[in-house]
């Protein structure tokens, strides 16, 4: 990119700050070399801005003003009870949990016994054991993005999950990232998930904060996902924070033959959230169902940017995103679907809908279909509308007070997206979480 452009305070902060901390970051010499290369790339490219096509509606350079101090080896003391509170309705679920506090794995708060037969290991553990730079690996296309480079440079920890061939894990594995303490920090994590041949699992990444945590923070999380032949993964990310954080998430997904991937993003209470995902169909007849619900109020900004890349025949993709936008919140949906020449019989459908609860809210939706095969069925749609006043009248004429009537209609709107979550306890907890948000309380 344009090297001559003046560096912002945040860009300089991240670049110059790196030298001060590089020796305290986990990993051997290979990893350090990878980090150096990455920060060099970040220094050259800087934060993405609105003149970069994929960041047209989310001018990160302009929004991310400061480089917060990186969270490294954080030791903020919290208890399991704090984690449960942070999880809100999700805290009721008795599931295997891996907990990271301000970007660092905490063994004493984690419990992975219930995930028997599946390997769940912290990245820091692997790095301490001498793992080399490969554990960081994402596809080159993903790695060359400057936000991913920044993550590579600073990632302190993360979780590496391996579901061996043929293993089915019923309980969802929770990877819980909590913010805690009074110091606003930049926390970067790197995760990998591999689902073996014919294996099946559910993984839930949660981003939340414990009571009393500073409302500010910056998070970057990169997750590389590989589904082997016939592997099935329900992959859910839940951001439920306090309103001022910058959350940058990047999922890089590769599907082998007949893999079945279900992704869901729930995003509420993030000052700025960028949920970026790339799904590459590297085998025939793979399926992906990617959906999400986002709730934003005041000046919050939630961006969903998807790239679905059908490279081989018989792929199916479904996308459904629903957002509720209040005050002067802004929602962004960019959904690009590529159907390459070999991807005959691809069946792709996409829908993005926003419920506008204020005239000041904004929804930018940009579907993009690039189709190079001729025998395909692809469609997309996008709507943005206010609450239906006729329906409100109907509900009120039946005695339901205005606020309850509004809540019922909003819930039914997001409920349609949340229904995509197949695990019933998870679905109910998310619905409850959305209701709490709608009532205006912080979780």
């Amino acid at each position, binding site marked *: 990119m344009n090297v001559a452009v003046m560096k912002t305070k945040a860009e300089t902060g991240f670049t110059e700050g790196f030298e001060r901390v590089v020796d305290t970051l986990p990993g051997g010499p290979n990893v350090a070399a990878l980090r150096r290369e990455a920060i060099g790339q970040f220094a050259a490219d800087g934060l993405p801005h609105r003149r970069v096509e994929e960041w047209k509606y989310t001018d990160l350079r302009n929004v991310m003003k400061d480089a917060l101090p990186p969270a490294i080896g954080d030791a903020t003391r919290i208890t399991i009870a704090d984690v449960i509170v942070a999880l809100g309705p999700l805290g009721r679920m008795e599931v295997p949990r891996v907990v990271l506090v301000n970007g660092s794995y905490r063994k004493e708060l984690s419990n992975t016994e219930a995930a028997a037969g599946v390997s769940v290991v912290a990245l820091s553990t692997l790095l301490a054991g001498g793992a080399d730079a490969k554990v960081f690996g994402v596809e080159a296309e993903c790695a060359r993005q400057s936000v991913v480079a920044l993550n590579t440079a600073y990632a302190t920890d993360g979780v590496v999950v391996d579901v061996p061939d043929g293993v089915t894990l019923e309980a969802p594995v929770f990877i819980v990232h909590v913010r805690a303490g009074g110091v606003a920090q930049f926390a970067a994590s790197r995760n990998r998930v591999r689902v073996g041949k014919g294996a099946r699992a559910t993984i839930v990444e949660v981003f939340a904060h414990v009571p009393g945590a500073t409302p500010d923070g910056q998070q970057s999380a990169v997750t590389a996902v590989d589904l082997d032949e016939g592997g099935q993964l329900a992959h859910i990310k839940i951001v439920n924070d306090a309103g001022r954080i910058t959350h940058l998430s990047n999922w890089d997904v590769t599907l082998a033959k007949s893999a079945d991937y279900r992704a869901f993003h729930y995003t509420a209470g993030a000052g700025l959230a960028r949920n970026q995902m790339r799904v590459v169909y590297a085998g025939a007849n793979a399926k992906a169902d990617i959906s999400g619900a986002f709730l934003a109020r005041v000046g919050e900004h939630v961006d969903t940017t998807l790239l679905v890349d059908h490279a081989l025949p018989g792929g199916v993709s479904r996308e459904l995103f629903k957002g509720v936008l209040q005050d002067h919140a802004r929602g962004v949906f960019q959904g690009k679907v590529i159907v390459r020449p070999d991807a005959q019989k691809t069946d792709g459908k996409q829908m993005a809908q926003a419920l506008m609860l204020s005239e000041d809210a904004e929804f930018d939706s940009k579907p993009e279909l690039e189709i190079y095969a001729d025998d395909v069925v692809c469609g997309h749609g996008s709507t943005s509308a206010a609450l239906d006043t006729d329906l409100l009248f109907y*509900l009120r004429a*039946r005695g339901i007070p205005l606020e309850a009537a509004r809540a019922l209609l909003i819930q*039914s709107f997001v409920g349609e997206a949340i229904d995509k979550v197949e695990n019933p306890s998870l679905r109910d907890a998310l619905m409850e979480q959305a209701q709490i948000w709608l009532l205006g309380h912080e979780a």
Partner: protein
Amino acid sequence: MLEIKNLHVKIADEDTQILKGIDLVVPKGEVHAIMGPNGSGKSTLAYVLAGREDYEVTDGDILWNGESILEMEPDERAAKGVFLAFQYPMEIPGVAGLTFLRTATNAVRKKRGQAELTTPEFMKVVKERAGKLNIDVEMLKRPVNVGFSGGEKKRSEILQMAMLEPTLCVLDETDSGLDIDALKVVSEGVNALRSPDRAMLVITHYQRLLDHIVPDRVHVLAHGKIQKTGGKELALELEKSGYAEFGEKAA
């Protein structure tokens, strides 16, 4: 008792005057029918009773049990016992029928100072009342009215009425879209609600309904005014002569 006095109504955003001085009294325990040509303002009157915002009352008043309801919100009116069965019931995607019925029933019960129904209590009452209207409870698990046939929607309105136990029932062309058997079932449902402390206003185009729900009075609404009032035989006369006689002297 329902008292409508010199009611003038126009469409809120426009100057079009629809009701031009309606005077009507329906005492408790009575059923009055309103008939009249298409576009004469029958549904408008029904909506104004229920409190729809698209209309503006420019003159006159509506009293229910001696109290003006004009300033009340639609849900307050519902709590006071006003119920409108819509000519065109709306579909509410994503809201299950049972959730809707329970929310509505408990909202009005709460406002009326009655105990809210627990889930088992509610289910018992719904099953019983839906059964009488030939409505399968399975259907109520689906989103409200979504994919219902015209007749199913009308029956669903009457079930809502049965659940909310209103004291002023306004039925706007509840008979249209019903087959002969359904008409009987629905009429029985309505008749079951007839009682000395309920008033009913039944809007219809057809004498047929009034064979089942026999009215105490019949009013002809045309060109924004009540043009004629009579006994149940007036409906039979209209069936023969139509509304031609009310064509000229209006407005």
